């Protein structure tokens, strides 16, 4: 699955309405309000032809699984997304769509490519942007991605922390990789804040070497998996949530520039190559593949935000990136249970499987390392 966000004027808001406005797809153009009826096997948008400009999608989840709704442009560039729509809930997504062809997708269970429907938008073409405006648009688009991920990160970290403090080991273990997924997707943001990153995501040997207390995600991970309890974890849990909130707030005050996000797209792959491939990130839980996938998704999101710039400046590079991202997905996704979304424990992978993952990541890292120079040349 691909989770990136690029859009002009995306707003997500939770609606309390439980109204189920199911209607058949209309062949007539519609503007303004649309409804999306999502079940575990169907995704019905009330209109397939739209007018250019802002549209509001009202997504109602009539299924039994938590779902997501996306509007994709070509190359799975995300124009807008709403995550975490629980069964019975309705949420709204406002997207400003220029003329073009898009796809609406529901993702019951929040995995896979989703159930898709083509959306054709006609009307006035979007005004072309100047180069620097394109870079600004890319940075804005990524900032919106960070916002959406940050919200989910705080939600899921809160749930994780609550489970730890309640002494619910099984629940905490189940939430650990899920909450970390949102963290790992936007890791370049956290890494901007030098002192917060190590106390939140540091490893035990480094803490020992520095002579500081071992804290953060991995401190609690160790207690859960090695000791099988949550004793003494309350203080670390509270501190984790505080730090995550602080990083999110700082990140929103200082959004990444286009160049930083180009570098971040590479940084995320470096994370994979140095931390995940070796299985040292989640050494106690072996949930590395969740983080692995999240790093790849975060990198892909950064590239998606930059896509209009890259397509103009280096179309061959875009083709190469698309091909290599697809190759990574193919190699990686075979280790995920399509029904539950669970990933194989990293210690279960054979040497050969790890080598295959390493090869596809290396193949993607080479073209990714060229992106920053293209962005710098476009400024």
């Amino acid at each position, binding site marked *: 699955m691909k989770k990136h966000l690029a859009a002009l004027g995306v707003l997500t808001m939770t609606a309390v309405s439980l109204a189920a406005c199911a209607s058949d797809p209309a062949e007539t153009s519609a503007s303004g309000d649309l409804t999306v009826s999502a079940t575990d096997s169907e995704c019905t948008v009330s209109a397939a032809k739209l007018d250019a400009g802002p549209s509001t999608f009202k997504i109602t989840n009539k299924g039994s699984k938590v779902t997501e709704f996306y509007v994709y442009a070509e190359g799975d560039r995300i124009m807008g997304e709403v995550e975490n729509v629980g069964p019975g809930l309705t949420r709204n997504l406002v997207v400003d769509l220029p003329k073009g062809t898009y796809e609406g997708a529901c993702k019951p269970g929040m995995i896979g490519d989703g159930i898709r429907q083509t959306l054709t938008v006609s009307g006035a073409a979007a005004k072309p942007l100047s180069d620097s405006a394109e870079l600004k648009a890319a940075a804005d688009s990524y900032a919106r991605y960070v916002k959406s991920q940050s919200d989910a990160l705080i939600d899921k970290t809160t749930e994780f922390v609550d489970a730890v403090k309640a002494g619910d080991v099984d629940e905490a273990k189940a939430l650990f990789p899920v909450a970390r997924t949102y963290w790992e997707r936007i890791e370049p943001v956290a890494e901007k804040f030098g002192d917060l990153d190590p106390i939140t995501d540091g490893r035990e040997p480094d803490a020992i070497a520095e002579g500081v207390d071992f804290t953060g995600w991995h401190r609690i991970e160790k207690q859960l998996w090695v000791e099988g309890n949550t004793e003494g974890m309350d203080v670390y849990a509270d501190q984790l949530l505080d730090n995550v909130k602080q990083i999110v707030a700082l990140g929103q005050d200082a959004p990444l520039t286009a*160049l930083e996000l180009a570098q971040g797209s590479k940084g995320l792959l470096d994370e994979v190559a140095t931390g995940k491939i070796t299985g040292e990130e989640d050494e106690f839980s072996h949930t590395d593949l969740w983080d692995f996938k999240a790093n790849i998704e975060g990198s892909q999101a950064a590239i998606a935000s930059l896509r209009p710039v890259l397509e103009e400046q280096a179309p*061959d590079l875009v083709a190469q990136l698309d091909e*290599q991202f697809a190759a990574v997905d193919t190699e990686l996704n075979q280790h995920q249970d399509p029904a539950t979304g669970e990933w194989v424990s990293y210690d279960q992978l054979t040497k050969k499987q790890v*080598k295959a993952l*390493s*090869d596809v990541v*290396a*193949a*993607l*890292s*080479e*073209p990714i*390392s*060229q992106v*920053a*120079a293209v*962005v*710098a*040349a476009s400024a």
Partner: protein
Amino acid sequence: MSTDDTTPAPGLSRRKLLGAAGLGALAAGAAGAGAGYVVADEPAPAVVADPDAVPVPFDGAHQAGIVTPAQDRLYFVALDLTTQDRDSLVALLKQWTVASRQMTQGNDVGKLGAVGGSPYSPPEDTGEALGLPPSGLTITIGFGRGLFVDADGAPRFGLGGQLPDLLQELPGFSGDRLDPAISGGDLAIQACANDPQVAVHAVRNLVRIAFGRASVRYSQMGFGRTSSTSSAQVTARNLFGFKDGTANIKVEDRQDVDDFVWVHQDDGPAWLVGGSYLVSRKIDMRIETWDRESLQGQESIIGRAKGSGGPLSGGDEHEAIDFAAVGDDGEPAIGLKSHVRLAHPDVNDGAKLLRRGYNFVDGSNGLGQLSAGLFFIAYQRDPIKQFVRIQRSLAGLQNDLLNEYIVHVGSGLFACPPGVGPDGYWGEGLFA
């Protein structure tokens, strides 16, 4: 890295200034030789020109690195192709050829090199050879069976019909303990130089160019060439302390080179004519046990004197071996199971090899012993009639006495295409 250009680029000299200095030194040396030593004139001290400043030619009928003089250092790497696409393989071979031509001539890889590109872009060249001379660098490529067919024998890259008959898996030999992880490979690169940093730089940059198309299977560093390929070179010693390669084919033996190294028109396939087969064997040596063997024991196992390298039948290093000679005890002077006898052409239907091996030490094994040995490399016209013939004679505890002290742990067989012209690329005959 962006090496989408496959046309030869002149390249940036990584050593422009130093190169000029090298030529100046040559001139000074020549002048010094002509002039007598005159105290009053205080002539500049005679500077010996740096032989490493003169590159080994890259283009030619045969690849460099086979009969060209053996350098001091080796970095050998075997790769597996991760791409299945023929065009992408061709592009890789073209880019490798261009980059190798640049590096062997002492230039940076790419048009902009190590420090000339965009500050936001990773440099085209990795840079650790900046300022270093060509150092005799040669880069030699070989194709494994896996390039042509997969494990089930199905053709790859449309090359099934081009597979040479002789490019089979080598047969097993008694005593082999081969580790598949350090054996085989679809492609092999032998980078040799007099400076290990230059050899590493070459392999590192070629591997980098290949990301997404080929992935390293194993690599091996070697030092102290154990063979001489020219009569102008002294015979070096292996880690057993013996001169190794005394009887090697030398480039000066034109007939031998022609008969035993290069693939002929009649041998086929056409794309390989002018090329050669490379056999690699990683041979672990039981160093500590060997060191406890008496001098006499060591010499009789090898069949040569340790100091001079001369055969135990008498004479200096290059004396012809007299296998009929008998010692004071009435036994053959050159033991029936001595290494030199069993490896000799006389007992192997005349087979000879061009050896180009290197010593290696891969640290230690945790038991207080060195992980050391010989990375054996041999070039030949026909691996069955040459390497396999000789190894059958040597292998097994019933044969070569040396087998008590060595074990073969890695193996490879590669078909090395002929050399290229200025606009050619390695393996071009395969895709014509």
